[in-house]
């Protein structure tokens, strides 16, 4: 053999305990944790099963960036549009009653920290920020289990040969389908009533370059987020639909509980097609062509479903920890993922300075998350899902119908006096809410949504 090769040493080093921390999954929570730890001087490796970060990630489409903005320079980030208008539509099978808000402030930076993005692009960029800060990224590798010694988590097992890697800290950022955490008995498998199935299409408009700005009344980088609920959105299921504008495409999808998907509303794809052809929605997609179809599960168990967050040698963050808020008005998960990754990363940096890996040394993560908007918001709406479940017939079917009917009556043009139109409209509402007593009860039950 030639000397140029013979003199080289290309032996495989042993990487056990060469890294301070292993992050399982390079999504938003994982990269936030890795970036925070790398900034804190730790050697971190992110292990991602996709070919690149974000390759496996699906979400509806709006990213909330208050914490990301603190961790990285968003000016370079691949953002699609900022959200300039929010619209909430209640759909019966053929009516829509909607409110729309588009404050002038949302047009000004930082645009209320709300942007549509493609996860395949954004997550890859965010992971790059962690790599630029010194973290190592390993793709196409699936973590299959945890390694324990005397009860303490001391590393991960992967699907590769020679696939065990030891490290003092493990950050579990594996997403909503958290098989590693479940197998390791760090959390229970979620009940199907607490998990939503979401389907989404990305639609382009090959024959109409101005489709998005014209149909959604937008200029420049402004975008729209439309949320829908009621029978016209998801049929008999508990959930809702959404429409979000990207740069050149529009995302349309819906999410509802898996428990409904196994009983009353079995076909998510068919439900999405029905939603797309609803008379209030169909004109938005005229001449559109579907270029992408995706599906995922969303944890919706709220604060009750959040598992123990810290363990000896490990923490759980993001969707894996069930950190998703869905109260019908707010659909937030990305901001919670980043916030949790940030607090988890910080607590590991602090624990490493003390040379400790036990759960107590990591408890600052759980405490800081409890004090942050993440757990405060989850706790605030803890009661809501149950209340809506009890009132689902009213919320998803009777109320949208009553509002549509009341609107029809109130604005009716005929030769009757407006007095009787107003009376009819009121009657229709009162009937649906169960009179003044019913209305008062409802107001009391749901007051915490707005107060």
């Amino acid at each position, binding site marked *: 053999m030639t000397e140029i090769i013979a003199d080289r040493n290309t032996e*495989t080093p042993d*990487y056990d305990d060469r890294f301070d921390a292993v992050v399982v999954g390079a999504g938003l929570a994982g990269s936030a944790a890795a970036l925070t730890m790398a900034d804190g001087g730790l050697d971190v490796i992110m292990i991602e099963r996709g070919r690149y970060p974000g390759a496996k990630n699906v979400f509806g489409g709006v990213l909330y960036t208050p914490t990301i903005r603190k961790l990285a320079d968003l000016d370079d980030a691949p953002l699609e549009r900022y959200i300039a208008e929010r619209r909430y539509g209640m759909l019966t099978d053929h009516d829509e009653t909607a409110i729309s808000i588009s404050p002038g402030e949302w047009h000004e930076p930082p645009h209320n920290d709300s942007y549509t993005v493609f996860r395949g692009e954004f997550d890859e960029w965010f992971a790059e920020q962690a790599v630029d800060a010194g973290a*190592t990224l*390993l793709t196409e590798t699936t973590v299959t289990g945890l390694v324990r010694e005397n009860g303490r988590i001391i590393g991960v097992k992967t699907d*590769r040969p020679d*696939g065990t890697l030891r490290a003092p800290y493990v950050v579990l950022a594996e997403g909503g389908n958290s098989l590693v955490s479940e197998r390791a008995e760090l959390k229970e498998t979620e009940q199907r009533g607490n998990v939503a199935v979401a389907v989404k299409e990305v639609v382009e408009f090959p024959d109409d370059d101005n489709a998005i700005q014209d149909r959604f009344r937008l200029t420049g980088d402004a975008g729209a987020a439309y949320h829908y609920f009621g029978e016209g959105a998801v049929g008999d299921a508990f959930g809702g639909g959404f429409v979000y504008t990207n740069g050149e495409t529009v995302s349309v999808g819906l999410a509802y509980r898996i428990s409904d998907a196994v009983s009353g509303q079995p076909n998510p794809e068919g439900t999405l097609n029905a939603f797309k052809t609803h008379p209030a929605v169909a004109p938005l997609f005229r001449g559109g062509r579907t270029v992408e179809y995706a599906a995922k599960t969303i944890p919706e168990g709220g604060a009750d479903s959040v598992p123990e967050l810290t363990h000896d040698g490990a923490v759980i963050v993001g969707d894996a920890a069930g950190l998703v808020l869905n109260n019908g008005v707010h659909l937030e998960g990305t901001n919670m993922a980043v916030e949790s990754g940030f607090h988890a990363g910080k607590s590991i940096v602090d624990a490493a300075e003390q040379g400790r890996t036990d759960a107590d040394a990591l408890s600052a993560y759980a405490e800081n998350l409890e004090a942050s908007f993440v757990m405060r918001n989850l706790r605030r709406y803890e009661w809501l899902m149950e209340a809506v479940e009890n009132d689902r017939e009213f919320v998803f079917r009777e109320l949208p119908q009553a509002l549509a009917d009341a609107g029809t009556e109130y604005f009716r043009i005929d030769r009757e006096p407006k007095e009787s139109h107003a009376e009819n409209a009121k009657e229709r509402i009162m009937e649906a809410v169960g009179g003044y007593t019913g209305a008062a009860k409802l107001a009391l039950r749901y007051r915490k949504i707005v107060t």
Partner: protein
Amino acid sequence: MTHNPTIVVGIKQVPDDDEVRIDPDTGRLDRSSAPAVLNSPDRNALEAALGVRDDVGGQVIAMTMGPPPAADVLKEAVAMGCDDGVLISDIAFGGSDTWPTSLTLARTAEYLDADIVVCGEETTDSSTGQVPPGIAAHRGWAQLTYVEELEPLPEANQLAARRDVEGGYERVVADLPVVVAVAFGENEPRPAGLHRKIYAENEFEPVTVDANDLDIDEETVGLEASPTNVGGMETIEGVDRERTVVDDVDELAEAIRSTEVFA
């Protein structure tokens, strides 16, 4: 050989054919958006080479020709288990067709004291299959093409190969040095080990050689030295399918009879 042969594997970075989009409006291939990846038949070549090393020992060295970013495929080869990787990079090689490419790879194999050169059967971006035989031809070495399986015969200093032929297979034995082209999909490429992959992607740096190191006259490589001359490209227009609705079987039979399907 030798119980410790030097096995050199020629690999190439190509546009990912999974990501090459067909533009739905024009029907044309859009390669520009596709990321560069390891040519997938090369995985079978790497596996075959590593299999020989499993049997008789030796060293497996991956070589690739291209600009510095092509080093990524060498990292992938090292992750899979290659002992080293050589990047053959020189501005003089730009525009080379299969003739100067196989000349350059042949010179590199000689430079590395190769006993066995292993390649994939072809690359997915040009599909000529000319390079492995070209390497053998430039050096006057034996060649084994469309190989399903290799069997080293170290005592005899030979390499046996099983080749697929119509109605069965044949076993061909060649003296070393020999160039092997492995048939696509004939073996199961091994996954990279975890620690090896971390090393390959983060610490490994390939050896880089240029025309001067290889003692290659710059006049003999590159676009000017490439005999291939593309005469032109034609796009075939699609033909619309005719659709006819018939009311009954007799009418259908008549409609078919009036075509050239039945004489």
